[in-house]
């Protein structure tokens, strides 16, 4: 019985400490997904969360300014102005009408300040009209680092 207790304590210590680390990691990195429409209804504390918003890049909206890139994301009939302030160059796949996922926080003036942008031109790899959609087996180009 004593042996069992020893194993129990060993296993318990490992699981509790790893659980604690997991909880810390969760607190540090949790990110909320929101759609553009949802973002406009958020209030109070939930506006300060780190979040991800996905949408389609409005054609002609990409403006490269010094230190940041401004563009407009569209989705569900709404649009969201975004300022990308990250240091990484934007991925090759980030062009007009590409699908993009921005990560960051909304600013007070209604713009979304993004630190990371991922993009994928889903439309480029589709079969011709009438064919089936074939999403590429590859991953999105990324600007985030490990």
């Amino acid at each position, binding site marked *: 019985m004593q042996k069992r207790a020893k194993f129990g304590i060993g296993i318990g210590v490992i699981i509790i400490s790893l659980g604690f680390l997991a909880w810390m990691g969760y607190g*540090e990195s949790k990110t909320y997904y929101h759609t553009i429409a949802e973002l406009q209804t958020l209030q109070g504390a939930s506006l300060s969360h780190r979040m991800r918003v996905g949408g389609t890049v409005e054609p002609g909206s990409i403006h*490269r300014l010094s230190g940041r890139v401004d563009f407009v994301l569209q989705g569900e009939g709404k649009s969201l102005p975004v300022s990308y302030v990250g240091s990484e160059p934007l991925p090759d796949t980030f062009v007009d009408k590409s699908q993009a996922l921005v990560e960051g926080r909304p600013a007070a003036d209604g713009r979304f300040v993004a630190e990371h942008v991922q993009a994928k031109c889903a439309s480029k790899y589709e079969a011709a009209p009438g*064919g089936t959609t074939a999403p590429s*087996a590859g991953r999105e*180009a990324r600007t985030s680092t490990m």
Partner: protein
Amino acid sequence: MDVFGSFALLLAFVCAAYAFVGGIAAIRTRHPLLVKSTRQAGLATCGLIFLATFSLEYLFFSDNFSVAYVVAHSNRSLSPFYKVAALWSGQEGSLLFWSFLLAVYVFSALLAYRNKNGELMPYVGVVLAGVQIFFLTLNNFVASPFKALGVAGANGAMDLVARGDGNGLNPLLQYPEMVIHPPNLYSGYTGFTIPFAFALGALLARYPGEKWIHLTRKWTMIAWGFQTAGILLGAHWAYAVLGWGGYWAWDPVENASLLPWLTGTAFLHSVMMQEKRGMMKVWNVWLVFCTFLLCILGTFLTRSGVVSSVHAFASSNIGNWFVGFIAIILLVCLTAYFKNRDYLKSENQLDSIVSRESSFLFNNLILLVSCIAVLSGTLFPVFSEWFTGDRISVGTPFFNKVNIPIGLLLLFLTGVGPLLAWRKTSLDSLKRNFGWPLLMGLIAGVIAFPLGVREFYSLICFILCVFVAATITMEFYRGAKVIRARSGASFLASAVDLTMRNTRRYGGYIVHMGMVLIFIGIAGTAFNRDVQKEMQIGSSMQIGPYSLLLQNFDTKQEKNYTAERMIIEVTRNNKPVMMLYPERRIFPANQASGTMVAIYSTLKQDLYVVYAGQSPDTQTPVIHVYLNPLVKCIWFGGVVVVLGTLVALLPNRRAVLVLSAVQEPTRVKSLAGTLTPSPTLREGHD
């Protein structure tokens, strides 16, 4: 050829259905002719899948742009090398490729055991046919790769059309690794079907003893070896192609490949408990069930879009099929378990906390905790949405916080576990086995600290790596010394002889050594540096010991793409080291572009140069340079792991052992006592 291919697939489906239904009937009636005919049906299923796969390749090579899948993933100027890879570059083709690799395994298994294990094989055949039916259903009725290209005509009906040229292959996939990485990974995913089928078959048949474990050990190792190689090749592809300076980002797709690897690794270790001590039978069965389920889950996650990092991309209904399949497997496994669980009773109990058994137990425990952590982190957005309505994702800090300590604990057990005795280890043997390695590890730590290794986890990792490497080296040294004393051969020859006498044990050590190298490489991540600069011709930048001078840039016209190429001279202490040519490739067929990273790799560090694009303000090229220490260790470690796996697959060289038995009976008895307690354990006979 497209009609031929789709017909072959349909026929394969019929054969698999017969193998399944007929197999169940054969188990019921035990009619020998029925048993034989269902086995033939299983073999025919595989043959027909081979034919279908070859006909799809034929369509690629003959530039048949009337088939939708070919149009979407190929074009005339695509090189033949990538036309092979185009097969698995999209949903439909990669599912066919899954069936193809599974068919290779099933075919080999059915053929290898056609006259053996008569009691078990019908059950195995039924399980295998069941899995094949699922994938053939997808291939035939949900995502057929042979669909003809059509457009909606004026009267609303679909008209068949042929295009002059295809859309081309996704440029991200036009790299050599992308030709070998998916086959490796898929061979891992599909390979775990064989141990799964044997485990489930044995449980359903109440097949006595540990036979299914002996039968499947090699299959499991082959699958595991492919999975390991596949994961590392994928990491290398991400490193060399995506151009963000790293190789692992805890992306859902990467996690999906890691999950079955974790449980598969746990399984490879815990089967030893069952073989030698008759313990953990329930655990082993469930580990192999979970590994297979995770393989299916991984396949599902990568193609359903459920947890795609850009969740809006999800545009496929194939996920429901996978969810259904997973539910069915789970149900079958649970039913089989609850019906026959009395046959899985353990024969022994744990004796001591310092024993081989307990080291395996802890190894399994933390591998499983890691698996659960990675799985829950990956699926967190899905579950949080179910429970709270908010879709919340967790990122790298979560995964790293849990998995770094787990990795270090595992590394520690890698060194300690194999040297602990079964049942109970004495203090004396602990001192004898671990005194020197521990001292060497600590010395390495004392040397590394002033050299700048100050990051806590990295320092611990380096100490443990030296410790583990020392224990492994000592094992080889001790064994080789005994052989050398008897044979008089050189140390190296004795070590080789030693390895060949017990390939499983020493192959395992080689795999462990490879893992040590991988850990060294990962520990180097803590010291990565990077600089980004806008550069004009003639300007230079400095990182670590290297200077980079942008000499010029040019444009290169290739068959399938145009490359913008930077010409950069690398110098060190004013001495030229080499020229690097980071590129951006523009593919006219689909107007996409891709980066081509230039890497100058030494054992100590990688100089990783990316042409990141043109600055929006000045149109000057932006160069991003990373200095990543010790990355080469990871790739080298991967090669060692695969080599070790191959060694462990070799049959033992047995003649020598018999010869020494005549000369030294006492010694061999002790050897036999520790290494081969049961006749079935001997390798190379199954």
